[in-house]
């Protein structure tokens, strides 16, 4: 029996364990018959100089791009990893249905999920995100990471910016679910910028349901509280 899978990408500083251990997605996944694939956030042990200097760049902060700049471009190819290498690995080792794939993520992982879906129309049946970085070229995190991985040419950054990609998206209809904690410090510090994405999607008529959850912050308790809704959201499309 082919099982559908949902890749769930984690955010800055996280490893694959964060989602596996803290999101409590197993119950809902099991109920809907979905494999959860939880990749890491960056390559590990590359011994690249400076990779461990910041928590928001390098190790644990791959930003799901294929780096074009040295010394990152050899190893920091998280975009290809997530969209090509990892699915192949899963499909050949698990009874997964290669056609039934969805993607989801938190924070930086949310950014990763959004861009993978927007850059690969039709590849993912659905996409969802928790507190994603929606417009990285406009926020401090994104600017730091992109300039490091992609260089100074901002046009190359746009290739990995969900808001920009949404503005020029044409492809099969997506159904995007985004949950955002209202008391998220990164929201208030303008790192996440969901309004920009919403505006772009409204203009391009990309269906998004964006929920601002009162009282919730950026933590895994937030994910824990709403993960069932996300898995149900994916199940609707994966099991159709």
């Amino acid at each position, binding site marked *: 029996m082919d099982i559908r899978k949902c890749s769930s990408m984690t955010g800055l500083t996280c490893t694959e364990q964060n989602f596996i251990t803290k999101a409590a997605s197993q119950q809902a996944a099991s109920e809907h018959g979905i494999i959860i694939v939880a990749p890491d956030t960056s390559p590990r042990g590359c011994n690249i100089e400076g990779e461990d200097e910041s928590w928001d760049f390098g190790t644990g902060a791959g930003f799901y791009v294929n780096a074009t700049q040295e010394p990152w471009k050899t190893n920091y190819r998280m975009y290809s990893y997530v969209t090509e290498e990892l699915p192949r690995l899963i499909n050949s080792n698990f009874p997964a249905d290669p056609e039934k794939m969805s993607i989801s993520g938190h924070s930086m992982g949310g950014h990763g999920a959004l861009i993978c879906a927007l850059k690969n129309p039709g590849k993912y049946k659905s996409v969802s995100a928790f507190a994603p970085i929606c417009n990285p070229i406009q926020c401090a995190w994104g600017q730091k990471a992109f300039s490091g991985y992609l260089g100074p040419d901002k046009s190359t950054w746009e290739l990995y910016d969900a808001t920009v990609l949404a503005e020029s998206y044409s492809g099969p209809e997506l159904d995007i679910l985004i949950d955002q904690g209202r008391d998220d410090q990164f929201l208030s510090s303008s790192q996440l910028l969901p309004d920009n994405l919403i505006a772009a999607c*409204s203009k391009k008529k990309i269906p998004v*349901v964006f*929920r*601002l959850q*009162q009282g919730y912050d950026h933590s895994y308790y937030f994910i824990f509280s709403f993960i069932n809704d996300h898995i149900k959201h994916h199940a609707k499309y994966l099991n159709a």
Partner: protein
Amino acid sequence: MDVFEVRGRLDVIAEELASEEEEEEATDEDVFEQGSSDVSTHTQQMKVSTDSLTPDRASAVCDAALCFQEQLNKRRSKLSQKIVEMENFASNLEEIFITVEENFGRQEQNLEQHYNEVLQTLLQRNEARAAALDEQKNSKLECLYGQLLRCGQTLDASKELIESAQELHRRPDKHGFLQAVMPVMKRVEQFAGEEVDLKLGVSLDFQVLTPDLSEVRQMMESINVLPAPSAPVMNPQIANSATDTSLHVCWSLFSDDTVEFYELYWRLISDDCTMETPQEVSQLKVKETHCTVSSLRPNAQYELWVTATNTTGISPASERAVYMTVPSPPVLKPRQCVSSLNAALIRWDSGNTDPVESYTLEFGETGTDGSGTESIVAIPSCECLLQLQPQKIYILHVRAVNIGGPSDRSEPVHISTTGTFFHLLEDTAHPSLSLSADGLTMFYLDEDLPISHMTFSDNTFNRCVAVLGDLVPVRGQYYWEVEVDEDAEFRVGVAYEDTQRNSHLGGNNTSWCMRHILTPSRHKYEFLHSGWTPDIRITVQPLRIGVFLDYSRGILSFYNAALRQHLYTFSCHFLHYVQPCFALDNPGALTLRTGMTAPAYITP
């Protein structure tokens, strides 16, 4: 499966079990007694150890038990019916018995009276005759006595003369003798010369008067003349013999009386206490012992009685019977009927001003030519909740029933169980709303209509320009869609039936709704309950909204039906049944789409 088939199967099972025991030397005992096919006289006793029975056999045994139970129930209800019929018959017999007794009692009395009169007259004649005879006797006796007296006197006088003559004769004195003899001799001569009347003055025969018995004869003859008839007996109303404007009336005559014709009388029985004079009595002359009375009112009670007439006279009136015309047929209200996949709530108007006893609902699938029509009887009110099969179309009729029988069938209504069906309830609509003819679209036309032009009632919304729909009162799953214009500001959702009519939908704890607000910069969406909404942004404006209600899971969900996109779900434990609700906050229109099952993406 009939009783014989079941018994056959039970036989087979018993045999198999017996042979199994022999083979396996099972320790458990299965005792299986078979009763006869007549369930009412024998009871089945089955002690079966379910451990040693396979599921198939256990279910066969259960089936058999159920089958017998059903048979028992059927026969029991037939018996009850028979008992009721017999009771009715017995009470009618009682009435007949009493009337016959009365009739014969009266006849007896009449005869007795008659004969008493005859006897009296005879006695009188007899007495008269006796008196006449007596009189005769007395007069004869008187006459005879007179004669006797005279005779006596004459004898005495004669004797005296003779004595004096003898004395004279014996007188020695001849001189004296000669002196006295001459007058004596004259007297004797005189006396002897007198005629002695020796005839009886009266006849010894009595004149027997013939009494005048002509009157008596007449009276005797009149006993043999035809009497006036005895009172007839009204029969009780025969079931299903009445229509809504006519009654078939029957009566009987329990004697050998000759009857030329009957006169039937009837009068409307009115419960109206304000009527001072009783209703006028109508009558009809009839030759047979039955007739049909027409031009009556439906669902009305009539008092009827009958007299029998022949050449002699008119009988006393019969006891009065009460008959009832059947009601007028009810009127189904299709706009107020609602249905879902497996149930429907049917509503109707009575069709009669006075109450009826009950209603009967008849329904069947369309296209089945009337076979497989089911009936639900003894419905006490003007609505009925039905269990139905999904994905079918039914045709329904209803009848009103009173003691006279059932009315004609109402006009039919078609009910579909392909999904949730309902209409907007006009009597809840804010006066600024007008509904389309099919009850599925609402229009809010004039925002500036002055309040003085509006008629409110207790049931209409008076602040929120809203209207309610209706659902089958069953805690199941329901789905409907709402189509809106791009610039319509609306509220759609559900509310309790008694949600405050002076409040806005979603603004209280008795309603849940999705709200669309048009701001200069964007479309704003709220999901309101008790005035609170989560903060939700939706990028693609939903113009066809799917609403899904699931009582058992306690959820109310909204979808962009065109995109199959889930928008929001309320989690709420509904304490009562809820009804769909709709409101427009600005002039515009909103259309309801019903009759579809929830799409697959909604129901997992």
